[in-house]
């Protein structure tokens, strides 16, 4: 399911950007494939993933979880990456692209702060200036990650417009890029934004399913599972977990959105359920909006899923029926996080807990192999988890 020449997956994608961004986006579009397909890039990227990020991440057979759901549950342990989530796969790739393009100043947006931390980390590694935009609301609810970014030398700038979350941080990052087009590289954190970002980020995250194939072959004698379950904010961990199986119809691809307080309440971030086709952040995709085309404010307990759109690949998977889209509420995600912690001794990120919550919603056969992409660890969410304990 490769992107077409003009950057569309079926009806979705493209580059709906003002002229002020045309040069930057076009420069990236003209160069990204040449760069990432070069031998020197591939070598540098895979060395860093191995020695710096700690890849390959394990594919762990979760015995007690499997017993509970009466099927074979494997966890792809992206939580064990350096900095604690899948986000670093992408930031390592993009920082190498930025360097090849001679950019000196890196900007990024972040929701949960995981992408911000992963960006600040690779900027420290490469000695580049780093500015991270983060919604004021998210700065409060993900304080540990704000502290990490600062210690890593990044400047964290609050986004104070709109809902003061990920959407607004993305707007601010794009504005910064418009104002600083020459020396600045925009290091986007998910499979969103104008072409070529969705394709480039999906390629960097595709390491997840590349490893999965080898690991499943070894553990199950078959290089594909029956189902893959991943949470979706913008959709980068899901894109990476699905990537090498997009054409394999034997694999059911399950994306789990944040229902928030429940779809019926309107306090939700379940874009495919309450959204419609339109344009957000330079991409034609599904998004939450009113009849005037004003983008509406999403809600989820999880800052990483609190985004009113999905990447164009996922809009295409949804519309074409290739992907199955489920949702998990705040409460279901919290319960799932506690369940994984009790059964397997793993505290997941709140985002990843949404994927785990989907286990309740599927009728499994006993001999199935199911992979849950455990996109990140729960350190950043301890305050929320502890509040729940009391």
């Amino acid at each position: 399911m490769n992107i077409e020449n003009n950057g569309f997956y079926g009806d979705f994608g493209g580059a709906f950007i003002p002229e002020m961004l045309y040069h930057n986006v076009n420069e990236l579009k003209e160069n990204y494939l040449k760069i990432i397909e070069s031998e020197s890039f591939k070598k540098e990227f895979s060395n860093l993933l191995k020695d710096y990020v700690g890849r390959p991440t394990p594919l762990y057979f979760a015995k007690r979880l499997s017993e509970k759901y009466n099927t074979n549950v494997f966890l792809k342990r992206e939580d064990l990456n350096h900095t604690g989530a899948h986000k670093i796969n992408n930031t390592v790739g993009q920082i190498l692209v930025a360097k090849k393009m001679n950019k000196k100043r890196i900007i990024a947006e972040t929701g949960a702060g995981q992408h911000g931390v992963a960006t600040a980390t690779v900027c420290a590694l490469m000695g580049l200036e780093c500015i991270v935009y983060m919604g004021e609301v998210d700065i409060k609810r993900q304080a540990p990650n704000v502290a990490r970014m600062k210690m890593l030398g990044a400047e964290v700038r609050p986004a104070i417009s709109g809902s003061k979350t990920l959407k607004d941080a993305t707007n601010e990052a794009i504005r910064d890029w418009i104002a600083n087009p020459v020396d600045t590289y925009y290091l986007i954190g998910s499979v969103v934004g104008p072409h070529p970002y969705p394709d480039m980020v999906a390629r960097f995250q595709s390491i997840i399913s590349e490893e999965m194939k080898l690991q499943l072959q070894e553990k199950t004698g078959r290089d594909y599972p029956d189902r893959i379950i991943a949470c979706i904010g913008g959709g980068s961990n899901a894109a990476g977990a699905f990537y090498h199986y997009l054409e394999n119809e034997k694999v059911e691809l399950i994306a789990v959105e944040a229902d928030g307080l429940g779809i019926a309440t309107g306090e939700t971030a379940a874009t495919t359920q309450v959204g419609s086709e339109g344009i957000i952040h330079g991409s034609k995709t599904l998004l939450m909006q009113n009849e005037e085309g004003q983008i509406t404010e999403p809600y989820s307990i999880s800052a990483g899923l609190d985004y009113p759109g999905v990447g164009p690949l996922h809009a295409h998977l949804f519309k074409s029926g290739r992907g199955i889209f489920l949702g998990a509420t705040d409460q279901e995600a919290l319960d799932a996080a506690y369940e994984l912690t009790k059964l397997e001794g793993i505290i997941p990120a709140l985002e990843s807990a949404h994927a785990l919550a989907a286990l309740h919603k599927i009728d499994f056969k006993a001999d199935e192999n199911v992979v849950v992409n455990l996109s990140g660890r729960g350190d950043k969410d301890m305050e929320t988890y502890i509040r729940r304990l009391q």
Partner: protein
Amino acid sequence: MTRIKNTFQTKTNILNIYVTAGFPKLNDTVEIVQELARNGVDMIEIGMPFSDPLADGPTIQNSSEIAIKNGITLDLIFNQIVEIRKTVAIPIILMGYYNQVLQYGAKSFFEKAKRVGVDGFIIPDLPLDIYQKNYKSLLKDLELDMIFLITPQTIDERIRLLDEESSGFLYLVSSYAITGSKSNLQQNQVDYFKRIKSLSFKNPKLIGFGISNKESFTTACNYAEGAIIGSAFIKAIKDSNNLKESISNFVKGIKE
């Protein structure tokens, strides 16, 4: 002849003022545009407030947020333009984002705009190829202008393409910037204007972004047929308790 064409043929040093529809109060727009026209402004750009205006700076973004809270909608804007057209004859351009047009239904949007007396559009995130494929012939049939932007980074070859596809005028973004960011024009901006001036164009040009006072307006007029002022005007009316007076003072400050 279209109103925009006629304006460029009969006037020089054209002053185009941007105003956010539904701001500061929902129903202020009609009076604001009438006053601007009465005070000798040559062209009006009416902003259709959008929740996520990527090409706009904080001042216009903030005015858009207020207008949306006030309850502005595209149909209300069209109604306001009907009122405005009862007394105002200068060109009116609608500026907004492609998602708004798509959700309204692009064909109905352009037809409705024509019916109420709009002359042209600035839709910064509408890609050129999609315009060519879907809307160019419709707009031509309706005798409506589509105005494209060029920036200091736009290479000559693309400038020629955008000039070819634009009608009415070409919008010169003055700097590497979103609207309203700097108060005076810098040397590198002037260099860029000089480069532009050395090229030949099909369309007249207006310079926008960062034009805020008489000095920057006059500089802009040396390199183009006129200029567009947005954020500075929004600031001038934001907290005004006498719109008539604020508008008259503002326009006098630029034109006299």
